[in-house]
């Protein structure tokens, strides 16, 4: 059940300050989105250091966490998003392989 091409992706990236992991995750995310979701994505970066209460809503535990808010269902990907293949699987842009 991969997402249909027309859908707009509403993404939120949770970080805690501009840590190297956070910076890396954001760069990786931008690159992936530009390549695979050009023109139909939005990224909101939530810094939990500034807004700690926001971590509750999306059940944030690990950082960085990427949350796909739209299209539903909500998906979460944790880590610096360095493995493009897994990010695409996590965003439902690639079918999940049996081994994944």
């Amino acid at each position, binding site marked *: 059940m991969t997402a249909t091409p027309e859908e707009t992706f509403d993404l939120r990236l949770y970080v805690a300050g501009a840590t190297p992991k956070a910076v890396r995750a954001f760069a990786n995310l931008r690159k992936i989105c530009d390549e695979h979701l050009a023109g139909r994505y939005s990224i909101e970066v939530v810094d939990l250091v500034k807004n700690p209460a926001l971590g509750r809503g999306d059940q944030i535990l690990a*950082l960085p966490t990427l949350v796909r808010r739209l299209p539903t269902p909500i998906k979460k990907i*944790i880590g610096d998003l360095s*493995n493009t293949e897994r990010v695409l699987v996590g965003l439902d842009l690639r079918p999940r392989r049996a081994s994944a």
Partner: protein
Amino acid sequence: MSKSVNQHNEIPKARTGIPGLDDITFGGLPAGRPTLVSGGPGSGKTLLGISFLVEGAARFSEPGVLLTFEENAEELAEDVRSLGYDLDKLIREKKLVVDYIHVDRNEIEETGEYDLEGLFVRLEHAIREIGARRVMLDTIETLFGGLKDSGILRAELRRLFRWLRDKEMTAVVTAERGEQLFTRQGLEEYITDAVILLDHRVHEQISTRRIRIVKYRGSMHGTNEYPFLIDRDGITVLPVTSLLLEHEAPHERISTGIPALDDMLGGKGFYRSSTILMSGTAGTGKTTMAAHFVDAACARGEKCLYFLFEESPQQMVRNMTSAGIDLQRWVDKGLLQLHADRPSRHGLENHLLQMNHSVELLSPDVVVVDPITNLMAVGTQADVRTMLTRVIDSLKTRGITAMFTSLASQVESPERTESLISSLMDTWVYVSAEIVGKQRDRQIFVLKSRGMPHSDEVRSFRFSSRGIELLPPTQPPANAPTHGAKRSARKPK
């Protein structure tokens, strides 16, 4: 480890407020440090942690944060509400924060490096919000099921416990009991300040819960397994004995309610706050003896609590009327409470707990358990002895005089049948009946009575409309048990 640590120079402690637990830990959990509480499913570890938090928030001005990975906050509040804790109220009063972290491996994709900073941020936020001094993590091992990279997880947990120490949070970290280790994930490697194990066993359909302090760095602690109870008031730990025998030993004497029996006990009756065993074969008048004792106590204006395991209160009151003892008037005056129960309905521990509750509520001067033998049928011998020791200990600490009736078997000698409990008793009165000619001849003698001269006579007695009447002394039969002159000569301390 420092050898200079002693009882008076111990590390700071945070009281849990859990009755008994603060006794066996000599004051509570290590303040500003994490304590690991491990146990199997249903062993009560979550409740222990919540009690620690709630008591801290409500009684010790130490607000708390509960970070749970287990249930959501509503379910949790519901569960503990049934135990008398109102989490919502504490949350409204900003004394408690409950944060629920749901982790589902199937919902999370992992790619590349991450850490658990989100957990730290949320925890710190919650701590700041209410100025928390206490933290509970329940059950952090759930994370091992939710996240794939256990290497990261271990490193982060190590960091978390260090962080809690740096923040000087008194923390309870619950964990699942492992096969070989105290915890499934070996968390005891990270938390070395204090480790508490909980255990829940079912033996002959009776459940028993035990708690053991495996480790407590820088502090003395009780090392036994202590039974504990979970009931409508939460957790109660029952120290087997309060590690020191330091009850008050009053010199005051109180009447048995039967003047002739007082005479046999040095002319003055029992010692106040002593324990009395009233044993004998069936139908010899043990309950009547106890009723006399209670009647006399109430007449002095003292409060009595009478636990009945064979009769209903109404039956008891009616039967005693025929012996000329009017118990109803004491019930009406609020001086006497009769509690009837069937021991088989609950485990031993529940019984003990209910008895403790009643004792706490009434603060009686005198307690009667009639008969103690019915309780003894419920558990194993070791359990019964342990429990009785605890009952007696708690009664003595409160200065209560306690009488236990006991049904002795006809065949065996009293010394043998009751060896289990007799050593716990200060005074032991034995009643028996034998058929002499065409009637039963009832007899009474004092088998022992610590710290007072007492009669060696075996006295016959009978029931009249004025209750039990001892007949004038006769020569004791040749086979009557004799007992220590040494003992009777011993002076009370």
